[in-house]
C-alpha cells in the first residue's frame, strides 16, 4: 500500500470531519447539538493523528506510537468534557426550560443589540417522525388518538 497516499487520505478525512463540526457549532442553536459538534471536531483531529502515527510507523520512526497515545488522552478529555457539559446543560435547561442557546443572550456585552428571530418556520408534516423501536411481544391495543403525532408527550 502507498503509505503517503494513505496519510494524505486520512488528513483529508480528518479535515472534512473538523470542518463539519465547525459548521455545526457555528450554525446550530440547540446546546446538545452544539456539543455533539465539538465532539465531531475532536474526532477529526483523532483521525489525523492516527494517520500520522501509521505513516511514521511505516517509516520506522521512533515516536510512531505518539499518535495513538495522544488519541487516548483525547478520549479521556472528551469523556470529562461530556460529563461536565451534561451537568451544565441540565442545569441551564432546568433554569429556563429550553435548550436554546439564544435564551442565554442576557450574558452578552453591554450595548450589543439583542438577537431576535424574524420568522419561525412552521413544522412540516414530513419532519414529524420519531425514532421507533422494533415491536417485540404482543402488541397492546392502541386507540386511534394515540397514533397521531403528539407535539407534547
Amino acid at each position, binding site marked *: *500500500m502507498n503509505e503517503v*497516499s*494513505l496519510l494524505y*487520505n*486520512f*488528513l*483529508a*478525512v480528518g*479535515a*472534512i470531519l473538523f*470542518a*463539519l463540526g*465547525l*459548521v455545526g457549532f*457555528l*450554525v446550530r*442553536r*440547540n446546546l*446538545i*447539538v452544539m456539543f*455533539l*459538534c465539538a*465532539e465531531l471536531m475532536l*474526532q477529526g483531529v*483523532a*483521525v489525523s493523528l*492516527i494517520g500520522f502515527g*501509521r505513516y511514521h*510507523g*511505516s517509516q*520506522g520512526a521512533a515516536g*510512531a*506510537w505518539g499518535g*495513538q*497515545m495522544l*488519541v*487516548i488522552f483525547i*478520549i479521556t*478529555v*472528551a*469523556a*470529562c*468534557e461530556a*460529563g*461536565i457539559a*451534561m*451537568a451544565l*446543560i*441540565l442545569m441551564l*435547561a432546568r433554569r429556563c426550560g*429550553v*435548550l436554546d442557546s*439564544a435564551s442565554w443572550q442576557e450574558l452578552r456585552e453591554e450595548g450589543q443589540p439583542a438577537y431576535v*428571530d424574524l*420568522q419561525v*418556520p412552521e413544522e412540516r408534516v414530513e419532519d*414529524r417522525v420519531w*425514532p421507533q423501536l422494533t415491536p417485540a411481544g404482543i402488541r397492546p391495543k392502541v386507540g386511534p388518538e394515540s397514533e397521531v403525532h403528539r*407535539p407534547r*408527550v
Partner: protein
Amino acid sequence: MTPILAALPQWQEVLRCPTFWALATGALGLWMLLPTRFRLGRSLGSLLLAVAGGLFAYDLPLLGLWVDQGVFWLLALVAIGGGVAMIASRSPIYSAIWFALSLLGTAGLFLFNGAEFLGVATIVVYAGAIVVTFLFVIMLAQPEGHTAYDRLTWGGLPKVLGVVTAGLLIGVLTFFLGRLKDETKKPLSAEAIAQAQTNLLASDGILAEKHVANLGRHLFSEQLVSIELAGTLLLVALVGAIAMVMHGRPRLAQRIEEALR
C-alpha cells in the same frame, strides 16, 4: 522555505482543480441542508453534497490496492455522511444517533490504520457511554420533542459565513498538503513497499501482533506522568459535575430535619 504568497497558485490552476469545485458545491449543498425555510433544500442539498464527495474523492491519491481502497471509501463515507446528517437533522435525538453512526465510521478508520485498541475504545466510550448520556439528557431536558429553535439558525448571513469558513478551511488545509500529494505521484519501488511492511510488522511496529501489549508498554513508560494527570482530571471532572448538579439544593441534614418536622 518558500514564501507563502509566491507559492499561491494562479487562478487558472485553481479553476482546473477538482477539489476547488468539490468544496464550492459541497459548501452550497451544506448551506441548503442546514435548517432553512427553503422547500427543496434537503433533496437538492444531498444531491450537491454527493456530487461534491465524488469530485473530492476523484482528486484524492489512490492507495494502490483495490480492496483497501474500497474499504477506506466505505468507512470515510460512513464517517462523513454521519457527520453531515448530524448537523442537518432537525431533531436532536436523530443528531445523536447519526453521531453514533459517524463514530462507527471513525472507529473503522482507526481499525484500518492499525489502532485496534482505539477503535474499540471509541465505540465503547463514545458510542456506548457519551451518546447514551446525550440521549438521557435530551429526554430529561427536552421532553416535548420538536422545538422551534431546531428549525432555526442564527439568520442568513452567519449560516453563509459558517459554510464558507468550512470550505476555506478544508481548501487551505489541502492546499498546504500539496507537496505531500506530489510525493504520492512518484512511482514506488518494491523495496520501499517491502521496507514499510517490515517496519509496520516489526515487534514494536504499529501493526505488530501484540498490539495492546505494545500500547500499554509505551503508555506506562513514556507517558506515565500524563496518564496519572489524566486520571486526576477524570476525578476532578466527576467531582465538578456532581457539584454543579447539587448546587443550590438544601443540605441532606436540613432536608432530614424538614422531613421529620
